[in-house]
């Protein structure tokens, strides 16, 4: 197995910064909405 990735200081800053996270929140909400509202169907043709 590859060596475990670490959460770097910069990544931690991004994860906790409320302003950056506010924009992430909007993007994340839209991405989730697209996946959920993106439809579903059968698989058997």
């Amino acid at each position, binding site marked *: *197995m*590859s060596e*475990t*990735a*670490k*959460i770097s200081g910069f990544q931690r800053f*991004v*994860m*906790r*910064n*409320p302003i950056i*996270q*506010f924009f*992430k*929140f909007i993007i*994340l*909400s839209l*991405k*989730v*909405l697209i*996946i*959920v*509202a*993106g439809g*579903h*169907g*059968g*698989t*058997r043709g």
Partner: protein
Amino acid sequence: MSKIVVLGAGISGHVAASHLRRKLGKEHEVVVVSPNSNYQWIPSNIWVGIGRMKSQQILFPLKPLYKKKNIGFIQAKAMSFHPEGDATETKPYVMVEYVTGSEKGKQEKVSYDYLINGTGPKLNFEATEGLKPGTNKAYSVCTYTHADEAWGGLKALIEEMKNGKKAKILIGTGHAKATCQGAAFEYILNVEQELRRHKVRDMAEITWISNEYQLGDFGMDGMLLSYGKKSMESNEMLEMIFKDRGIKWILGAGVTKIEDGEAHYENLEGEYKSEKYDFAMLIPSFSGHGFKAYDKNQEEITEKLFKGFMIVDADYTAKPYEEWSVKDWPETYQNPSYPNIFAPGIAFAPPHSISKPRKSTNGTEIFPAPPRTGMPSGITAKIVADNIIDSIKGNKTSLKHKGSMGNMGAACIASAGYGTFSGSGVSITTYPIVPDYEKYPDTHGRQLGKTFGEIGLAGHWLKLALHYAFIYKAKMKPFWWLIPE
């Protein structure tokens, strides 16, 4: 006039009942049978279990809502299924037993034209010796009462730690075939963060114990995720998070027995081991409710309706993992023997697990059962409701609405700590839920991009936003139906 009986008022039962009521005229009757007087938003139980939400915030009483919306409500539990009626009742019916008030214990036949079984899982604590929420220092967060108890246990331990006690905390799955790893994952991260908030983190050793072969399996065979600009296996992501939080892990562990402060387990290497703890939260195995079914002559026909959970339009042919296909998974959740019976959510019998089945060297099966989270439970319930609505309105059976878990996405917004600015979340979306190796052969059966992971405060906000949105929706407030399942 048609009568639709919905068993259960959890995510699937309640979603089905509300859509049926909204789209069917008053001449049609919608009746919900459920033993619990309250609706609970189960995903927020993890916050009740760390004392950051009161159980009152995640529940509301069903009776007033159903009265207002003209949905019948019987506070009772289904006991047996009679899909052909009997000598005295020509219509199909379910035998129910009242659970409260002066009528407690009374049995009644509830007849139907259509039946939706949304009874979810039986929390099968008995399958693990000694595992009973609130005893042996082991808890659950599967219901709000369990979560309240868990917080009581954790709070007391935090006080002891403040007085110098070193403590061991064990969180994960309490059975070799348990599912719902996601809930335990959320809880372990929330507990870890709460210990930091209470400034006792250094007094605790926190360990994850799970029947998963690898971290991040989640009963879904793991996943390859887009993570920022990279792609990452879910096990790598979880390893990164656990290492960051100083959480240890034990994998491939089938917990067999709980004693006061000690969990005994067998691992995939066939070793019998045990782990001591001062506080444990272990998810039990989920099973069917053990319902029986009878034909009109009162001959038992349980095998036509149940295979543990309810039989639906899945391909249940036994075959090896290598031959499993996404096409095995159901599309309409209709029982093949009785076309007016459906089972969305956790109530349907899956054709097989999603994770690769594994056995210990002693032959014990140790691997997660397939999860059916809130989103697919809601979506499948809506599909069932829409097909019933079309069938009633069109006066002929319609199965136009389809939704296989092999052609459906799910978002798991896992809380990783509570707090407006100190909170965190691990957001993972998966498309499709059941991997489709024919369509996505190079990316572990899933579509990269739609299968992604994100870590950060935004995830906490989203989980909180979903809490409020779904409770709003469940209360059937104005335009509730615009909020997707």
